Structure formats: C-alpha cells, structure tokens
C-alpha cells in the first residue's frame, strides 16, 4: 500500500486504488524529469479489492518478463482465481506498472504487488545502461602519457646501464670514503640492478603528471558550471537553463565536425498549430476563435449533403482518434463541469500533434470533453453531447506511423477511425477521393506542414468480435507480444475509407537558420535526421538555410530507386560529386567562396537500409563506402523517414568512418535517444516531447539556437583551455624532472635527488598548480563576441589541432630545452668556481661555499619562475584572479622557501634545507643567474610566438590583432557593458 505523495519503493503491479475508477496519478519527475501527472490503471479484475481485507482474500498469480531497462515497456499476465469461476487471464502493460522512483499524486492510496525489487527495478537497470564516453582530448592525453611512460622507462634504463658502466671501475663503485655495507656487497648483481632501476623509476616518476588528471577533472567539473550559469542560454519562456549531465565532454564541444539534428522539436518549435484540414477535397481553414463560434473559411464551394455527413464524420474522427487526457487543474476526478462553462480544459498528450488537432477542431465546432468510464464525450456543433463507447485503442507506434480507435456510437454503430501519416494510410484505403487529398497533402508538405490523413471503416458486430479476439490473444501473449500486436493491427487496419487530411504547422525555432548557417561556416557539417517525410523535411531545411537556393540536391529516395537500381544511383551521384570535388576541396581551403557549388543529399530510410544491408556476396562495405564518399562531399545531408535505430546507425557510420570525426547529435524526443547515446556528444533539447532525450544526453539545452553558443563559444574555450592544460602539464613536468635526470650524470648515478623532498612534493601540488587551473577556467584568447561573430574561427581548432604530435613535440622540446638551461646554467655557475655569498645581510664578511642543496634550490627557483612566467606569456585574458594566482603562487613559493629554510623543523631527521634559500638569495650572482636563466628559457617561446604570428598568422591570431587595434576605440564604453552593471534579468530581445 502506498499513500499519497509517497514514492514507490519498487516496481509494483497496480491492483486497486482508492478512486472508484481504478486509476491513480503519478509523477515521474525523479525518473525522467517529466513533471506532468500520468494516469495509470488498475487491473480490471482487481480494482474492486479496496481494503486490506479484500486484498488478503485476492488469489492471483502474475507472470512477467525478465527485468529489462526500458521504462515504457512492460509485458506480463495476471491470472485471477476466484472460487466460483474459471481463472481470468488479463494482460498487463506498462499502464499497470508503477515504477520505483515515481511518486503517487492526487490519489489517497493504492494497493499493488511488487514484481521487481532492488537492482532489478527499471530505475536501477537504467542507471547502469549508460555507457562511458571519452573525449578526443582524453584519448590523446592517454597517448601522450604512454609516450611519457616510455621516456620514463628509457630514462631509468639509461641511468641504470650507465651506473653499471660507471661503476665498472672499482674505485668509483666503492671509494674509500664511501664504503658499502656488507649486505650491499653481497647482493646479487641482477637484484641490485633491478633495485637501482626501480629507484630511478621512483626518482623520475614525477614526469608522469598524476596531478594532471586531478586538475583536468577539477577543470571539467568547475568549468561545466559556466555552461549552466550562462544567462544567454537560459530560456525564460520555460524557465529552464542548460543542464550538464556529464562534465567529461566539455572540450569535445569544440571539436565537433558533424552535427546530427532532429527536425521536429529541435529545428522546429514543436509548437503545433492547426492550419487547415481537407475533407474530400474541400479545404477548411480555421481562423482565430471568436468565442466558441467557429469561423470557418471554406475555400471551395459548400459541400453537398453527403459531403456534410462526411465532414462531420471527419471531425468526429479527429475528436475521437487520439489518446489525449483532459486535465482540470483543481479537481481531477471531481463532479463533471458544465460543458458550457466556457473554461477551456487543458489537453495533455504525449503527441503535440494530437493536441493541436483537437484544439483546432474545437475551433471548427467540435469539442472533445473527456473520457469517462470508457465513454468518450464530445460536444458537437449544436452543443449536444455525443457519447461514444471506446472499445479499443490501437496505439501509435513509430513503425506503423498510425493509430486507430474503435468506438461504438450511441446508435450502436461501430466505427474504426484511423489516423496516420499519408504513406501509411494511402495503401490501406480502398475508397475515398484519394487523388484530390493526395495532391493537397503533397502541397502542404512542400510548405513545411505536417500532414496526417484520417480514414475510417464501419464495422459490424461480428467483425468487431473477431477483432476483439485477435487483439486479446495478442495482448495476453507473453512472448513476442509486440510482434503479435503489430500483426493484429496490420490485419485490422485495412480496407479503410479515406476521409480527409489535416495539416499542422510546426514553426521553425527562433534563430534556427542563423544557428545552422553559423555552424556551416564553422566547418561543421549539419545533417538532419528526421522521421518526417521528404517534402516536409526538405521544406524545413530550406527554411533553416541548410539548403540554399544554389544547392544542388541529390536524391537517393525510394521513388528514385524504383526507377534505377541502387548501384546505378550511387555511382551516378559519386561521379557528379567527384567531378567537382577537385574545385570543391580547393574552395574548402580558401574558406567560403560564394560561388562554391554545394551539394545537398536527401536520402530516406528505405534507401538507407538498402545501403546498410550487407549484400549476399559479402562485399557489404562497398555501398557504404560509396555512400560515405558522397556524403563527405555534400555540405548538407537530409535523412528522412528514419527510424530511431537508423538514426543511430547513421551516426555510427560516420563515427567509424576513416577520419573518425567527432559527431554531435541533438534531439528532443525519445526517438532521438539512440542517436544521442551513440554520438560522441549527445545534446538533448529540453522540449515538449518529454525529458527522455535530455535525460539521456550529455548536455541539455532549452533551444536549438543555444547550440551555437555551446559549440562556438563554450566548446572553443574549453578546447583551448584543456589543450593548454594538458600540454602545459607535460611541459612543466619535463622541466621538473629532466634536470634531475641530468644530475645523475654528475652524482655517480646514485639516485641523489636534486631537490629537497618538500619541493618535490609541493611542486605539482601548490607551486605550479593554481595558475594553470585558473588559466584553464578563465582563459579567453579572443572575446566571446568575436567567437560568435566569426564562426570560421572554429576551424582553427578543428581536428584536435592543439594536441597534434607537432604541438606536443614542440612543448616537450621546449621543456627539455628549459631543463637544459636550468641545469647547465646552474652547473656552470658552480663548476670550478667558488660561487659564494658574501652574506653581508646575515653574517659578517665571510665567503661561504654552497653545497648540493643550494644547487638544487637554484635550479628549482629558476624553474618555478620560468614555468609560471611561461603560463603568464600564454595568458591572453588577465582578470584580477589571474593576476592574483600567478603572482600569488610565485610569492607563495618565496615565502614558503624562506619559512622552510628559516626554521629548524623538529620533525625532520635532517636539516639540509636550513638557511639554504636565504643564503642563496644573499648572493649577488645567484640573483643574476636567476634572471638570466629565466630570460633564456623564455626566449625561444617568445621568439616563436612573435615570428609565427607575423609570418603565418592563423585566423584566430588575425582576429586578436585586429581587435587589439580596435581596442583603444572600444575602451571607453567597454568597462560598463550593460551586462556587467545590470544585475536584474533583462527582457529578451527576440
């Protein structure tokens, strides 16, 4: 028993509720984020058991399938045994199942029986199902790491070998002043060598930047807040901001090469508006509603009497053929309201088309009131209430692309109303003005409207009983229920009479065209994958500038394949494309030339499955390869009539093609989930078709237009930041450990550390960690506005440009160079000369010789300064935080060293650092050496930067330069941008 506002502890079969009709309302906000109330139904035969005693007396068995993660699917069977009759078998579906994690609402209490518990609940199963996605940066990071591991091992090996070569002279192995212990002498040579190898590994292990992983994680975690904080991506209409479900892929947003977008709800608003309907060739256009009195504009002449009858039947069909629930806000199950109260009830449905249709029809005079006790009530034009008994619902699915209801009218006639996509209705129609309606449908489709056809069939009682049995058998089936149901539906929905068609407009999302254009300029290929039909989708593509007027369209559609074989079509297309590809690639390099001939490809689901299907002779990849070649040369691809799985297939096809491009999938509906999960980056639109996509995505944004900022600004920044982070970490660890390696050559390969333990430990933790972390959070090499204004900058970082081998090697060599400078600079300072401090500050006029710890401290000091200043050189965006952290960490190093060397620390067994740092600073040459060595280390990098900028400026660098030239002019107004000073939320401009 679960009471109101309680959460279900496990998956339950809903037996009975405190409500008379055996329903309950639940909200699954914590499961999939949908906060709307959903109605679940108790099992018919058990809904009478309303008290605990009753439930006690219930005797039934439940059979159900093995636990599986799909939240919206469940098959089971209940056998209710009663004393008098034979056991009653009832099918159980997802409407009888209450999921763990959902909350009971508006219902006093329910009774249920647990079927899945613990880890077998659907919620638990869903948690495991998400696969781990790793970004390209992470992958190259791991490759670099392997390189460094090899460097580490080879360093240790070299030193071990050198040690034994060096020790081959006995006086070097064991001079009189440095005797070994007896145990050391007797140890086996191999064992000694191995110990030495391990000791070298320990000594050099700092070259593996362990702290990098920590910093990268922190950077990703903290950095992802900038997405959620972004005010420009906040949608005030819905009150939703962007969501970040994983922070692992931030930088991948800067690497996207292919965008796969859904059309409905993503490119378009999914805010359906009923446009017109067409009954028997007569077109009705509803105007703005005038107080219940529908103003109908009939384009054609008024239909005759027979037409009138058909027309009303059409309207009734639309009113009845749906799965809408009516929601009264205050009393869900209260006494019925007067239908004339004027209050418009809110319709709730999983499909916005249905709502648009029913609301549109309301304007034409027919109003759907509610479903009560299996009777659908509607109000006709004369304000009479008509009641239809709802016999069956043949629910919608994306394969059939249609749904039907079977109702019995008050007069006892049984109708089957069927509503669905034109392609799935027309073949099943045997009567009606097919041609007229078809032409109208096609015209609407070209205008970008969503069309649905409505048909009906009158059934006689015997037929209905046959159907009933068929359906019942299918519903009760435990195995293959889906397939059996589909077969049953197939049998039932045939020989229909066409009534008419409807058209619903789905407006483009604001700035969708702008976004698509910017993405294309950024070198991202945009593919539209939709379940819609070719014409509608193509219209939407034109509207959002995916196809331009001069785009040459190539079609691989079923229609065309009827005329030619797939083989011919593909070869012909590839010839057309390759013919121009030479000029095309040249244009690609030189940027965007206006006269560039670009191609758009249109392909539909059937053709795609032909391409994807392995051929009998085994050369399956042949067509695929050809298809890929064609696609790669097209600036835009439109895939229509896609099943959800096909969407994922396409994504997979591109993902695993030769260049392994980074893909991004964006969608809003449950049908996009598979492609969202498949793509490298999945983005969900927090839209109207529920939260499934947002829940399964890596990032969720309220509107399609936000994708532009997401990729061009956030993605670009994150990529720049993290690639610098990765390279810098490797660099600074080379700087750190390479002098250590060199020192081994001068200390008899004895694993003597150059730096004190405290420096070894704190180098990565505190001396050099914060500046790079803050850099990787704050850096903006160009301003956000520039990035948005100039999408072409996105090309500068495409294909992991900042983590290529060339860049990596440059950084590593820079590190090695710097390390050489540090070490040999200090070496020549100390070698054969008396580097002394004349220590006038603390001592009398004495000249004292420095030891090995001073040597290490000098190297270390130069290193900390160089490494930090190198980052300062790379920083383009100095906020007060950067200043604070960079100068602060240098200051911290100095203060720490003064403190570390200034006190005899009683917990240390050795006092080797005592006064070392202070003595070093009291020596003039040490200061001069520090300045010199820091300057020399930074010199090549400065030189490279300046020369590269001058000789081969990248687009980004040009923009930086021109903006810095403009800066003096902008300087005056920029400090008080309205965004900075105005804390109140400002109204949106659009």
């Amino acid at each position, binding site marked *: 028993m679960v009471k109101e506002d309680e959460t279900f502890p496990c998956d339950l079969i809903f037996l009975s509720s405190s409500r008379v009709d055996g329903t309950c309302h639940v909200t699954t906000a914590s499961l999939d984020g949908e906060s709307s109330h959903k109605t679940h139904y108790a099992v018919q035969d058990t809904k009478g058991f309303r008290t605990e005693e009753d439930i006690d007396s219930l005797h039934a068995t439940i059979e159900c399938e093995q636990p599986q993660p799909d939240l919206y699917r469940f098959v089971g069977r209940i056998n209710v045994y009663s004393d008098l009759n034979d056991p009653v078998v009832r099918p159980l579906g997802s409407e009888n199942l209450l999921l763990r994690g959902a909350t009971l609402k508006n219902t006093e209490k329910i009774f249920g029986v647990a079927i899945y518990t613990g880890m077998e609940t659907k919620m638990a199963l869903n948690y495991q199902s998400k696969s781990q996605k790793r970004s390209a940066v992470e992958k190259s990071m791991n490759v670099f790491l392997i390189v460094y591991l090899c460097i580490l091992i080879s360093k240790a090996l070299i030193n071990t070998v050198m040690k034994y070569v060096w020790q081959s002279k006995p006086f070097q192995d064991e001079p009189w*002043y*440095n005797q070994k212990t007896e145990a050391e002498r007797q140890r086996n040579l191999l064992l000694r060598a191995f110990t030495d190898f391990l000791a070298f590994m320990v000594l050099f292990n700092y070259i593996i930047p362990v702290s990098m992983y920590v910093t990268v994680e922190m950077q990703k975690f903290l950095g992802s807040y900038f997405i959620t904080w972004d005010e420009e991506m906040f949608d005030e209409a819905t009150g939703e901001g962007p969501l970040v479900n994983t922070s692992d892929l931030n930088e991948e947003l800067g690497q996207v090469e292919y965008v796969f977008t859904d059309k409905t709800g993503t490119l378009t608003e999914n805010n359906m508006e009923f446009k017109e309907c067409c009954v028997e060739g007569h077109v009705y256009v509803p105007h703005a509603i005038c107080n219940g009195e529908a103003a109908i504009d009939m384009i054609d002449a008024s239909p005759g009497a027979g037409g009138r009858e058909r027309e009303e039947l059409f309207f009734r069909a639309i009113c009845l053929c749906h799965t809408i629930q009516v929601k009264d806000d205050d009393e869900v199950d209260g006494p019925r309201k007067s239908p004339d109260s004027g209050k418009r009830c809110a319709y709730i449905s999983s499909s916005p088309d249905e709502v648009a249709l029913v609301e549109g029809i309301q304007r034409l005079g027919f109003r759907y009131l509610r479903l009560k006790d299996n009777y659908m009530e509607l109000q006709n034009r004369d304000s009479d209430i008509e009641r239809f008994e709802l016999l069956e619902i043949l629910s919608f699915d994306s394969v059939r692309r249609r749904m039907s209801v079977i109702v019995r009218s008050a007069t006892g006639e049984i109708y089957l109303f069927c509503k669905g996509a034109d392609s799935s209705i027309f073949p099943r129609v045997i009567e009606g003005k097919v041609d007229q309606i078809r032409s109208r449908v096609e015209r609407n489709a070209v205008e970008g409207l969503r069309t649905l056809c409505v048909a009906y069939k009158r059934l006689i009682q015997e037929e209905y009983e046959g159907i009933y049995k068929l359906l019942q058998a299918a519903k009760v089936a435990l195995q293959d229920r889906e397939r059996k149901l589909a077969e049953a539906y197939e049998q039932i929905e045939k020989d229909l009479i066409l009534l008419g068609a409807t058209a619903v407009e789905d407006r483009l999302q604001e700035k969708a065209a702008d976004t698509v254009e910017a993405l294309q300029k950024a070198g991202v290929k945009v593919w539209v994958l939709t379940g819609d039909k070719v014409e509608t989708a193509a219209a939407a593509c034109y509207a959002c500038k995916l196809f331009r007027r001069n785009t040459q369209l190539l079609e691989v559609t079923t229609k065309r394949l009827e005329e030619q074989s797939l083989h011919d079509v593909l070869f012909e297309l590839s010839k057309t494309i390759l013919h121009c590809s030479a000029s095309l690639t040249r244009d690609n390099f030189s940027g965007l030339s206006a006269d560039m001939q670009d191609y758009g490809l249109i392909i539909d689901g059937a053709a795609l499955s032909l391409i994807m299907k392995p051929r009998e002779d085994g050369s399956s990849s042949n067509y695929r390869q050809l298809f890929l070649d064609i696609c790669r040369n097209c600036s835009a691809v439109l895939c229509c009539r896609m099943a959800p799985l096909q969407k994922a297939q396409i994504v997979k096809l591109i993902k695993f093609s030769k260049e392994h491009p980074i893909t991004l999938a964006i969608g809003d509906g449950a049908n996009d989930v598979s492609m969202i999960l498949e793509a490298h980056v999945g983005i969900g639109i927090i839209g109207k078709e529920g939260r499934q996509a947002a829940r399964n995505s890596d990032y969720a944004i309220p509107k399609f237009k936000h994708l532009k900022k997401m990729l061009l600004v956030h993605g670009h920044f994150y990529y720049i930041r993290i690639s610098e982070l990765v390279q810098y970490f490797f660099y600074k660890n080379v700087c750190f450990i390479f002098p250590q390696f060199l020192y081994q050559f001068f200390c008899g390969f*004895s694993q003597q550390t150059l730096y004190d333990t405290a420096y070894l430990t704190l180098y990565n933790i505190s001396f050099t960690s914060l500046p790079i972390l803050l850099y990787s959070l704050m850096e903006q090499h160009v301003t956000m506005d520039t990035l948005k204004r100039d999408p072409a900058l996105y090309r500068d970082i495409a294909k992991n440009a900042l983590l290529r081998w060339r860049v990596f090697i440059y950084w590593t060599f820079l590190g090695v160079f710097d390390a050489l400078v540090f070490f040999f600079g200090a070496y020549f300072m100390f070698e054969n000369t008396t580097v002394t401090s004349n220590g006038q500050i603390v001592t009398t006029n004495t000249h004292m*010789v420095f030891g090995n710890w001073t040597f290490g401290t000098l190297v270390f000091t130069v290193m900390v300064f160089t490494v930090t200043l190198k980052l300062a050189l790379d920083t383009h965006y100095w906020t007060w935080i950067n200043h604070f952290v960079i100068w602060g960490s240098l200051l911290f190093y100095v203060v720490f060293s003064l403190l570390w060397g200034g006190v005899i620390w009683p917990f240390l067994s050795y006092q080797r650092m005592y006064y070392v740092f202070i003595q070093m600073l009291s020596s*003039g040459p040490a200061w001069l*050496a520090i300045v010199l060595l820091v300057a020399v280390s930074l010199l090549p990098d400065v030189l490279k930067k300046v020369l590269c900028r001058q000789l081969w400026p990248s687009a980004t660098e040009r923009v930086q330069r021109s903006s810095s030239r403009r800066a003096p002019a902008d300087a005056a107004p920029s400090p008080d941008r309205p965004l900075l000073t105005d804390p109140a939320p400002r109204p949106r401009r659009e």
Partner: protein
Amino acid sequence: MTWSATARGAHQPDNTAFTQQRLPAWQPLLSASIALPLFFCAGLAFIGLGLGLYYSSNGIKELEYDYTGDPGTGNCSVCAAAGQGRAPPPRCSCAWYFSLPELFQGPVYLYYELTNFYQNNRRYGVSRDDAQLSGLQSSLRHPVNECYPYQYSAAGLPIAPCGAIANSLFNDSFSLWHQRLPGGPYVEVPLDRTGIAWWTDYHVKFRNPPLVNGSLALAFQGTAPPPNWHRPVYELSPDPNNTGFINQDFVVWMRTAALPTFRKLYARIRQGNYSAGLPRGTYRVNITYNYPVRSFGGHKLIIFSSISWMGGKNPFLGIAYLVVGSLCILMGFVMLVVYIRYQDQNDEDEDDE
C-alpha cells in the same frame, strides 16, 4: 546526475560578471610591435650587465697548485708515493713555492679543491646524523642507521660524528710562509681559520653536546672517533669555540658539494700586514699531506683567490650575459626585418576580410 540543476537553485542563473565570463580583463597581445623594443631593451641591458660582470670577474686573481703528487710534479710526489697502498698513510709533508711579482690584492681566500670526489653520491650524502651534530645526547649515543657502516665502532661504541661524510673529513693542513726578500727569513702569514662556515651552521645547526663537568672530552666519553680519524672530535682544535662538532673545517666539510669537482674554503688572509693582500715576494706553502685521493683518481689543489662583490672568479655569468644580450639584439633585428617585410602583406589580408 543533474547536479547543475540543484546547484542553480531557483533555475535562474546568477548574473554576475564571473559566471558570465565577462570579468573585466587586460588582454595583452605579444605582437612584434611590443616584442621588438622589448628585445632591444633586454639585449642592451644584458650586454651592459655582461660587460660589468665580465670585467669584475677578470679583475679577480686566482693562483692554484695541484699538489696531488703525480710523479714528476714537485715534491709532493714523494708523499704520494709513500702513501701508495698504505692505510693509514704515513705522516708526510711537502711544500709549494711560488713568488708574487706584485701585490695580490686582498682580501685573499685560501681554498682547497678536490676532483672526482662524489660528495653528492646519495649513499654518501645521507650518511650523517643531523640530530647528533646538533648536540642531542640520545643521538650521540645512538646514531641513526643511515650512518652504517660508520655507526658503531668495532668495539661497539657509537661513533661521533657518525657517517661516511664525517669519516672522510679532509685532513690535509696548510701553512703559508712569506719571504719578503730573497734569502731572507720566511715569516708565517696568519691564516684566519674562523668564519669560514655559514653563520647559521656554526651557530645554530651544529652544536656540541652539553659539557660534562666543564669538559668536552667527558661529554664525548663513551663514543669512538670515526675510523679514519687520528684524534677524537673534541681535539680537532685547541680553541674551545672551534672544536667538537662546531669545528669550522668540519662544518664546511659537512656541507656536501653539488658536483664531483668542488672547492671548500680553508682560510682567510686578513690579519696583520696581510689585510690588504699578499705583498710581493716569495711564498712557501707547507702542506701536511694526509688525504689519499689517487686511489679514486682524484686530484687535490690549493688555491689563492681574491674576491669581488660577486664572489669568486666566475667568467661564466659575464659571458652568458653577453651572449644572451647579443642574441636578443640579433633576434630583434631578424624580427624587425620580418616585421617590415610582412607588415604590408598582413594589412592587405585584413583588408580583404
């Protein structure tokens, strides 16, 4: 997983400059127009500094003598030959004669230099007990294990000071004699053997154990000197302020050198007639030759050096500054050429955009 939603609370993002990534910022750009003057200025400054350093380093005089005693290199070879293969080597002394045609400008410092001596070997470097050297009673009796095999003597007594570093204390000694006129008597030049260690080492880090009945010898009772030493630690010097662990030679030795070739300060010459330097004349250095270096292929040197504000002779720094400064100027010119030649082209590119 949607932590972000809860983090934002009311679903409305905070609209601050930080969260919107619009903090006011300085956006410097390392372009040629900035780098050029920078390079020229840095180059000039470096060359100036380098010249100064070079000349002040050149002004420093150094006089060094290798007294290892390889056959045929002066009279120390006798000692070297005598000590060959004998441990401990017999006491032996030799001398080095040199003459100064003019005044050796003071203050003059006397160093000894050892080569191929790995004080920075890890096994050697850790073989010491800082706690013992700071005068801790318990450590005096129980030296740390790192000192092994110089932890306890054969008789089982704790070694003070323990460890390989202390055991290998440099034990040659020098005295300097000056002959003002040819044929005249040699006068001993006073060598100041104090103030050669770090002030902090001598005063803080190294402490003798508390005296027993006013006697340092009693304080060290029950300990053994390192095996190579001829006398116990409390007899390193007759001066009570310079014996035991705070003997300055010992303290200097205990600061292990960074590289296998190293110098350590032996004495300062700053007293009497010699405060301005070594006047001209003939000199003799009497060397007590004890320390064996030939067994490990090392050399021993004795060095007289004067000192400037920047320490001892160090031509490296001056030359390095000169080289870097010239490089800066050179690169500055290269960049200038590049800048002028490609300036127009870049401008055209920008106009195109």
